[in-house]
């Protein structure tokens, strides 16, 4: 008997897939860790909908779904931008404060300086972008952890916000025209046009993928790659439209959220820049050796987060017809910051970088808004709402971890 290989010892663990036949069907868990990442979240959202529908007669009404969608837009838009920073493995704790400062700055431009609204809004967004890039520049230049820098930046911005506000502590935006952004509803032909354009853009993207694969002689099933995804997307969007037509129509914040979602999903999922984000988030050194300009990409991610935070802040200002000390969630970012981060994380974006999709911000924001809206309708107190949202966050992250472990991917 060989001494070197005692029979009692278990064999060393074989790397996964070592003996598997080539091109074995990829398991569900593995697909769920990549392209079907949104599946558990979408199912969770569906379950929440069913639950609240049984608990409250009002929940599924047009009016309530209209409210719910609008409630999710501010958190959702801020989370959209935050995803870019999270993908690189950093975090931006100043997004809520950025949204507050940008909104106050925009209001100051309108009220005190009398600038035209489009100019004021552009300046507000520009301020957000500059704040984000400054944080990113500092983080990459000095090499300090992003959560410390952005925590500090958030406090600085809270101070700046107070300095920008007049002595009354508030700018009133009623009758300035800013309130029209959140107050506009598209109905009839205009609403249908928006929805059809969205479907057409999505279909074009799928078709261009499909045609590319045919041109290169790769497997390109028309059903799976074009027809099915487009049909699902069209069904969901048209269903939402038909539902909202029963109320006032398609709210402008929802259209804005949809447009940003599409643009940023494209940026993260289709472009070289997006790929670089994922690479940096997983293995920064490998990305650097591959010639990726890591610092530039990271600064851009913070700039996007800052810009989206500004958009979210301006939208919030338009909805509540003004800005005040509590714009941007108040000191420290408050619930707005926590819910934006939670939205991204519940949507499957990893805090450790390199995993998750932009569309996750949509699902996460919807889940948070649904819980808050549904529990409100059930007459549950606010403290219970916080507890439930917190539990959902923990559940989402644990589920995520479980899928990853099951899929057998390391890191």
């Amino acid at each position, binding site marked *: 008997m060989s001494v070197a290989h005692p029979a009692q010892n278990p064999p060393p663990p074989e790397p996964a897939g*070592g003996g598997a036949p080539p091109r074995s069907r990829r398991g569900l868990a593995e697909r769920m860790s990549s392209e079907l990442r949104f599946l558990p979240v979408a199912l969770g959202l569906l379950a929440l909908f069913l639950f609240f529908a049984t608990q409250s007669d009002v929940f599924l009404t047009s009016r309530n779904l209209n409210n719910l969608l609008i409630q999710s837009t501010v958190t959702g838009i801020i989370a959209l931008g935050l995803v870019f920073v999270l993908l690189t493995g950093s975090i931006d704790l100043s997004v809520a404060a950025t949204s507050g400062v940008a909104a106050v700055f925009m209001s100051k431009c309108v009220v005190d300086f009398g600038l035209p609204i489009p100019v004021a809004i552009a300046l507000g967004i520009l301020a957000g972008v500059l704040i984000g890039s400054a944080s990113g520049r500092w983080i990459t230049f000095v090499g300090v952890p992003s959560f410390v820098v952005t925590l500090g930046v958030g406090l600085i911005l809270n101070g700046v916000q107070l300095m920008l506000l007049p002595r009354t502590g508030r700018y009133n935006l009623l009758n300035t025209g800013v309130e029209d952004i959140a107050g506009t509803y598209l109905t009839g032909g205009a609403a249908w046009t928006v929805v059809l354009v969205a479907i057409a853009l999505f279909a074009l993207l799928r078709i261009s*993928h499909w045609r*590319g*694969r045919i041109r*290169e002689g790769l497997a390109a099933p028309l059903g799976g790659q074009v027809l099915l995804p487009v049909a699902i997307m069209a069904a969901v969007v048209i269903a939402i439209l038909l539902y909202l037509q029963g109320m006032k129509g398609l709210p402008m914040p929802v259209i804005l959220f949809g447009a940003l979602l599409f643009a940023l999903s494209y940026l993260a999922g289709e472009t070289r820049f997006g790929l670089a984000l994922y690479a940096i988030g997983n293995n920064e050194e*490998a990305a650097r050796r591959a*010639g990726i300009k890591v610092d530039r990409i990271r600064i851009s991610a913070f700039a996007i987060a800052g810009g989206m935070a500004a958009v979210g802040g301006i939208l919030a200002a338009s909805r509540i017809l003004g800005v005040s000390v509590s714009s941007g969630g108040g000191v420290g970012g408050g619930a707005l910051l926590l819910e934006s981060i939670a939205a991204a994380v519940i949507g499957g974006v990893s805090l450790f970088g390199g995993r998750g999709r932009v569309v996750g911000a949509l699902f996460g924001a919807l889940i948070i808004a649904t819980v808050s809206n549904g529990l409100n309708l059930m007459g549950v107190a606010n403290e219970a709402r916080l507890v439930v949202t917190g539990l959902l966050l923990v559940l989402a992250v644990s589920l995520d971890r479980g899928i990853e472990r099951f899929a057998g991917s390391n*890191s």
Partner: protein
Amino acid sequence: MQPPPLPDPILSLRHISKSFGGVKALQDVSIELRPGETTALVGDNGAGKSTLVKVMSGVLRPDEGQYLFEGREVPVNGPRDVARLGVQTVYQDLALCNNLDAVQNLFLGRERTGPWWTGFRVRRAECERRARDVLRRMRLDSIALDRPVGAMSGGQRQNIAIARSILWEPKVVLLDEPTAALSHSAAEQVGALINGLASHGLAVLVISHDIHNFVLENSDRIEVLRLGKNAAHFRSGEVTGEQVVNAMVGGKEGVNSAA
């Protein structure tokens, strides 16, 4: 008829010395790589193998010595200069992104993209087809193109890293311990892959500890370093594992059997 003359070395380092503080990592070391040949670089821990590869790949600048490519001395100020010459390095840590699939890793940082108005959209289909072709040519068809490489075996990951190094048709490939973490069968597969590179006319340098199973079977020449100096070099067919090991640890004097 006379046997064909040896091809001229494509990459040669002459009289290289490199110190870290007071430690002389390399002293007057010379090495030559020829097209179509696999050279194994062996030596005990601390013999200077990794330092030599880092000098060859441009990561470290030598204190003294010459870097010659195709017979001419070339200035080397960093890894980019070396990559531009057509010298690719596969590091021991592989430098793969576990969350990306094989296609994305192969083309990372060098993707084919659409024009600016598409936001430099990655031409996924084109990359995928090229990746498939390269892997097929290397007989690596079993690697799934669209799986995250983090879910793959060590051998497959090693193969992807090697495939990435030859994707842009280099003339020289340097491999740092490609079989260190692999099972025997996976190491054999990597060995076959390395042999394939040399038979296509590339100059290959491979660091390995596995003299008996890997070096003797998969290399044409063996360069032995000991304590930062050239200790011996052999032709793989004319030497036993024992002789190589002796040269590594400084037992008996190595038989210098090369011309």
